[in-house]
Every structure is written in structure tokens, then in C-alpha cells.
């Protein structure tokens, strides 16, 4: 399927022919002129320079089950994705609204459960969810914040408006790439930044540290905050190390921490040191082998009991997964109305839940036109994109769905917007999405920007870096 059919072009106005510079959207005009004036050799040279620098600095991404590519670079495209300030402001408002409602929802379902009692969301939908954490029931968290750090995946549909594709409230990654790509772009093309006002994102680590400190179990002057990583073989290890370094805090592994006398400590060369806040990049079920998976070496034995006693904070909290689950997703607009008495600013993609008989029938009848996802899946694994799949693939997936319908949701195929991208043949439109990062403490904060992922194959809609997607710097311009 060509990338053209029906989609929103981020750069060109509808009806614009090739090389018609008058027909680009205003906020891209500057870039287009600059690109036109740039000799292709220089562009190629700059791209090689970027590759070399990324390799040397070791900004890498590990791909599961790929032995040869144990450490791979994510392809970086040097043409930025540009968002005008007014548009960003609206997005930011929508993100704040959505995250606030999601945090209220999480507090509610682990306390009074009002939203369930009033029948807005079916109880069994929440209480039987794998990610619903019984250990969280009745536990009071500082500022009632559960998802301190979230990454919301957005796409722009052919109607020009943004849709939320997925709320990532567990351990969303990608923010380090956002920061490194900006640094790289400023290094490669300083002239572009000198001539227009790109809003900065560099203060993100500072905001993150403030957010983590605010999550401390009680008021303290200098809480000790650490980043907990599964270790250097984790796919996002670069990011864990990067963030710890940028915040000037320790990057710990499970074995560095231990529980004694109802507190968490880390082992240091000078003896033990108490830890107050853990920015954990380890999944719930690996956090404490005494409470969850006994075979896990990634966690800290006894951590849960300290957490429940309120002597250490976790960011994000345990049990947030129930709110970003694909089966909970269809209810987010209702959550916003229920808790905030507002109309949702950001749109949800219409979603069919296959456990419902009428939805199931509709999906079965239209499988080749739909995108089907596993409720618990992530990273672009375990999904079917009807329109780009062969008949055989569709039928194989049908059998999987029939075996366990409740495990799937389906959505219409959205046409992701496109942005010009360097490909082998030159510059061509490629589909993109956007993941802004949202920080929640007493209030909600973010930096203007996010991670733009791009599907490098012509016509492809899969932007995940584990599936051959690339990335772009994201500019909010004033």
C-alpha cells in the first residue's frame, strides 16, 4: 500500500504538487527553504556524522531475541517533525486532562471504587485484570499520584486531529532519545536553531528529578532517589543510565538494594545508605521475589512490605498497568467525564472489545480492514494489521482470536500522518506517530516535544523501533 492513499501530510497543504514551495504549511516553510538550499552531499555528510557520533556515544537499543544485533542504533532521520506552538498548547491541555483522570481512576479503584459502583466501568473489567494489584488496595500514596511518568502515544488522523493510541503508564521509555536527538540536531545544524524559535526540551531531567523528589514518602529536605534498572542487557538500559547520570543520582540494580529494619538500603563502598524514592524501570512482577515471581533476580526481597508500610516510594506505583491496558482504554473518555466533569480534549480511537458478542461479530466480518491487538501486548508484537496482511496471515490470526476473544481488541486502520523523511531514493513521506512524556506530582508538567517515531518502509504503519522503525527530532516552534 503506497503511503499516499488518504492521510494528513504534516508538511504539504492538500493539493500541493511536488516541489511547490508555496504549498507547504507555514511552520515548515523555513525548513523547506533550508533543505532546498542545502547541497545533497552536505546532507549525506551530516547524516554520516550523526551515525558515527551515535555509535561512539553508544546510544543503542537492544532488540529482544536478536543475537547479532545485541546493540543496535535506532535509525535517526535528520528532518525534524514540526508542531506549531498553538497546536502543542492544545495537545498539552488534553494530555494534562487525560493523565489527571487516569491518576484519579487509579486512586479510586484501589480505594472507594466509585467508578465501579456507579457502573461507569464494569467491575470485573478492572478487578479481574491481570495488572490489578491487590497489594495496592487501601495504600495511600503521596499526592495520590500513581503514574508519575507516562508516555502517551498519539497519531494524527486524516481528519487532522490527534488521537490517543495508547497510554503508557508502566515504565514508558524513549525520553532519552528525545533529549539526545535534540542535542545531535543542534550540533549538526546550529543554523536552523539560530534562525527560528524551537522550544527547548533540555530541562526534562530537572523536572523529572523534582517529580521524583515530590514522591518521597514524607516531607524531607533531600530524599535519596535512585533509578532501578534490570541491568545492562535490558533494551532500555541506555536510557536508565542516561537519566541517572543527567539527574546525578545512583543507577542501581536489584542486588545493590536490600531491606533491613523496615527500610530499603543500598550497598556502597562506605557502608549502607538509605533509599527513599525508587524510579523503577523494572516491571511490577519482578520487583519483589518474596511477593511476586520467586525466580526473579531483578528485584529486592522484602521491597513490597517496606512500600506498603510507606517507608519507600516507587515511581511509577505498582498496579498502574490496569489503567493503560488496552481493554481499559475504551473507557478513558468516560473517566474524564466522571472525575473531572469535562469533555475529553484528545480523541480516543473507536475500539471494539472482542469479549462483547456484537463487537466480536463485527470484527470477524471485517477482519481484513481492522487492526487487532493483544490486550497485554506492547512493542508492536502480537498484532494484526488487516489491510497490509496477506489472506493467510489474516486467517491464521482469526484462529488465534477465536481461541481467546477476550484477549483482543480491534480498531479501524488509522491513517497515520506523514512527514518527509530521508530514504534511499531521496526525500519521501513516511508515516509517523508522537509520544510526549508527562510528569505528574502535585501538578502535571512536561517539556514541549516528545519522541516522533517513523515507519521507514514505504506505506508501513509500524513505527516501533523493535520492528525497524526510526525516529525524528520533534520541534515545537513559536
Amino acid at each position, binding site marked *: 500500500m503506497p503511503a499516499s492513499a488518504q492521510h494528513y501530510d504534516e508538511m504539504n497543504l492538500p493539493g500541493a504538487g511536488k516541489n511547490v514551495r508555496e504549498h507547504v504549511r507555514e511552520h515548515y516553510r523555513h525548513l523547506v527553504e533550508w533543505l532546498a538550499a542545502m547541497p545533497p552531499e552536505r546532507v549525506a555528510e551530516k547524516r554520516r556524522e550523526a551515525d558515527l557520533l551515535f555509535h561512539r556515544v553508544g546510544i543503542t537499543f537492544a532488540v529482544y531475541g536478536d543475537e547479532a544485533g545485541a546493540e543496535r542504533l535506532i535509525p535517526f532521520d535528520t528532518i525534524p517533525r514540526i508542531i506549531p506552538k498553538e497546536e502543542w498548547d492544545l495537545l498539552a491541555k488534553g494530555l494534562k486532562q487525560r493523565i489527571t483522570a487516569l491518576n484519579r481512576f487509579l486512586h479510586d479503584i484501589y480505594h472507594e471504587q466509585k467508578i465501579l459502583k456507579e457502573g461507569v466501568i464494569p467491575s470485573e473489567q478492572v478487578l479481574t485484570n491481570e495488572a490489578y494489584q491487590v497489594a495496592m488496595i487501601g495504600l495511600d500514596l503521596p499526592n495520590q499520584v500513581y503514574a508519575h511518568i507516562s508516555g502517551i502515544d498519539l497519531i494524527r488522523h486524516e481528519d487532522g486531529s490527534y488521537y490517543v493510541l495508547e497510554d503508557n503508564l508502566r515504565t514508558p521509555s524513549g525520553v532519552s532519545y528525545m533529549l539526545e536527538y535534540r542535542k545531535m540536531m543542534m550540533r549538526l545544524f546550529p543554523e536552523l536553531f539560530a534562525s527560528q524559535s524551537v522550544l527547548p526540551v533540555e530541562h526534562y531531567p530537572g523536572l523529572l528529578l523534582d517529580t521524583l523528589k515530590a514522591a518521597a514518602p514524607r516531607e524531607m529536605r533531600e530524599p535519596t532517589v535512585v533509578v532501578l534498572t534490570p541491568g545492562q542487557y535490558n533494551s532500555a538500559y541506555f536510557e536508565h543510565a542516561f537519566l541517572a*547520570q543527567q539527574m546525578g543520582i545512583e543507577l542501581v540494580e536489584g542486588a545493590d538494594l536490600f531491606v533491613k529494619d523496615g527500610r530499603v538500603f543500598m550497598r*556502597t563502598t562506605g557502608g549502607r545508605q538509605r533509599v527513599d524514592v525508587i524510579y523503577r524501570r523494572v516491571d511490577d512482577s519482578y520487583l519483589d521475589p518474596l511477593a511476586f515471581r520467586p525466580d526473579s533476580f531483578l528485584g529486592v526481597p522484602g521491597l513490597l512490605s517496606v512500600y506498603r508500610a510507606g517507608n519507600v516510594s516507587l515511581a511509577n506505583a505498582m498496579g498502574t498497568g490496569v489503567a493503560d491496558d488496552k481493554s481499559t482504554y475504551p473507557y478513558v473518555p468516560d473517566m474524564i467525564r466522571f472525575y473531572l466533569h469535562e469533555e475529553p480534549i484528545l480523541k480516543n480511537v473507536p475500539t471494539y472489545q472482542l469479549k462483547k458478542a456484537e463487537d466480536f461479530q463485527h470484527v470477524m466480518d471485517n477482519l481484513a480492514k481492522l487492526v487487532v491487538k493483544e490486550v497485554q501486548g506492547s512493542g508492536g508484537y502480537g498484532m494484526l494489521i488487516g489491510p497490509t496482511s496477506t489472506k493467510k496471515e489474516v486467517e491464521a490470526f482469526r484462529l488465534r482470536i477465536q481461541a481467546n476473544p477476550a484477549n483482543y481488541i480491534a480498531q479501524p486502520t488509522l491513517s497515520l500522518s506523514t512527514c518527509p523523511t530521508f530514504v534511499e531514493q531521496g526525500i519521501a513521506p513516511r508515516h509517523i506517530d508522537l509520544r510526549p512524556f508527562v510528569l505528574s506530582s502535585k501538578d502535571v508538567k512536561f517539556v514541549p516535544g516528545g519522541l516522533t517515531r517513523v515507519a521507514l518502509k514505504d506505506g508501513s504503519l509500524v513505527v516501533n523501533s523493535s520492528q525497524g522503525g526510526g525516529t525524528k527530532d520533534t520541534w515545537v516552534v513559536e
Partner: protein
Amino acid sequence: MLSRVADRIFWMSRQMERAENMARILGVTSNLVLFGTKNELQQKNLMAPLSITETDETFFETHKKLTLPALLDFMALDEKNPSSIYSCLKWARENAHAVRWQITSEMWETLNATWLELKSFKKKEVVGADATRFFDWVKDRSHLFRGVTYGTIVRGEAFNFSRLGTFLERADNTARILDVKYHILLPRVEDVGGALDYYQWAALLRSVSSFETYRTLYRDQIFPIKVAQLLLLERKMPRSLAACFDQVTEALNRIDGQNDQAAKRLASEIHARFTHADIEEIFQSGLHEYLETALDDIGELGNRIQRAYLGTV
């Protein structure tokens, strides 16, 4: 500093230093082989690096015959040999990778680039006529890493553990290099003091970059006892055991620990020994035996450092 991090930095520095000294040992062996015409001596020359690194058993598990190319392949490039240059550079880089947020980006980039460059050497270059070029490259990378470290890292625990690792490893390695001579003793008494003997000692001095230092400090012919004096007790010689232990005790004294008395006590004891030792006495009671004791003590100090600061238990 986190114990795990200190451990990685300590070993990263040891492995880089070990890679350099491996290159030095292999350099001297390749040189000595040029002089040894008799087959028996040839075999001794080739055996020496295996004996002093205690890898002879591992070598003969996979090799039947000991030849120079086989030795160089095993000691330089074999991933199964934990002391090979390949393994040292690989693990130095792995350790740096695990703590790259605690070291400077220049340090990480140096070790990463070294590792990437290592893979561009072809086997026939390393085990053949170009071996010297490879050894020089290894030494250059080690010098570069040490310089980058010294020039960029904050004077804190990371620096202390890096210095500790470097000089503990160097002390160990210099002792082993000096012991090479024991393993290639000339078969006939009348050869001692002859031309071949001279070449052996001179090659040994060159391997630790101190042939010129010897001349400058002693203004004399090459005498075994003075070579030993230089490599063991001469503080001005930066690879001597005395100089290494100046650095080891200095680094240790800067580190604050809770249960590190045992480590600090032993380090001071060894330091005092090299400060006050008399080379004549050492020779009378046997240089090889003296070196063996020194190596045991250095090993024990390593264990105590591990327990005091780096233990994971």
C-alpha cells in the same frame, strides 16, 4: 559509591592494565624467540608466558604443539582464554558499559572504540610478522585510556578505585614479567653472563619500557641484580613494585570504608617491605621465591579489597 559500581571500575582498570602487560610479555617473547636457536630453549621461551599467567593447562587442552603463532593466537585473540588481550579488552569494555554513567564519556568512548577497532585486526596480522604493530596498538590504547581517565575523571571514589585497580594489576604483572627470566634459565652455567644472557635481560627491560631508564639511573652494564633492583625497588621507575605500591596505598588511604582495616593493613605491610628491602638479600634467598611470595600477597590484598568494598554478599 555503590559497591557494584566500584567493582566494575576496579576491574575495568585492571583489565586494561592487564591487556597492556600481556602485550608487553608477548612482545618480549616474540623477541627472545629470535635469539633462541636451540629447540629446548625455544620451547622454554614459549612456555614462559603460559607459566607466568598460569594458563598452560588451558592452552594444552586445545593445542597439541606449542609454536609462536599458536601462543600468540591463544594469548592475544582467544576468547576462551580469560587472560587473553581479546578477553581483557572485551571485559574492560563490558565493565565500562555497565557503569558508563559513573565514568566520563571520554573513558567509555575510548574503551568502546578500542573494542570496535580490535575487531578490525585480522588474525594473520596479529600472529604473524605484524605482531609488534598489534602489541604497540594495545599499549597505545592502554596509555590513552589511563591518560583520558586521569585527565577527565572527578577525584572521588571512581578515581580511587580506578587507580587501585591499575596499580595492583601492574604490581602483579611486573612481578610476573620479572619472573619470566626464571622460566628461561640458560641450560648451561657457562652461558650465564654471556651474550644470550645479556639479550634476555635487555629484552626484559625493554618489555617494561625501562632499558633507557636503566642506563640513566645506573650508568652501567646490564647486571641481573640491578635489573631486579630497578623492577622491584626503584620508586622512580613507574612500573616497579615499589612505585606501584606507593600508588596502591595512596589510593587506599583516600577510600573511606567501614570494614577495610584488613585490606589497609596488608597494603601498608607490602608497601613497607618494598620500601626497606635489600636486593642482595632477596637474591641470596632466591628471586623466584621472593616473587612468588609477593604475588601471593598481592592476590590476598585483592581478595581483601574485594571483601572490604566490592563484595556483593
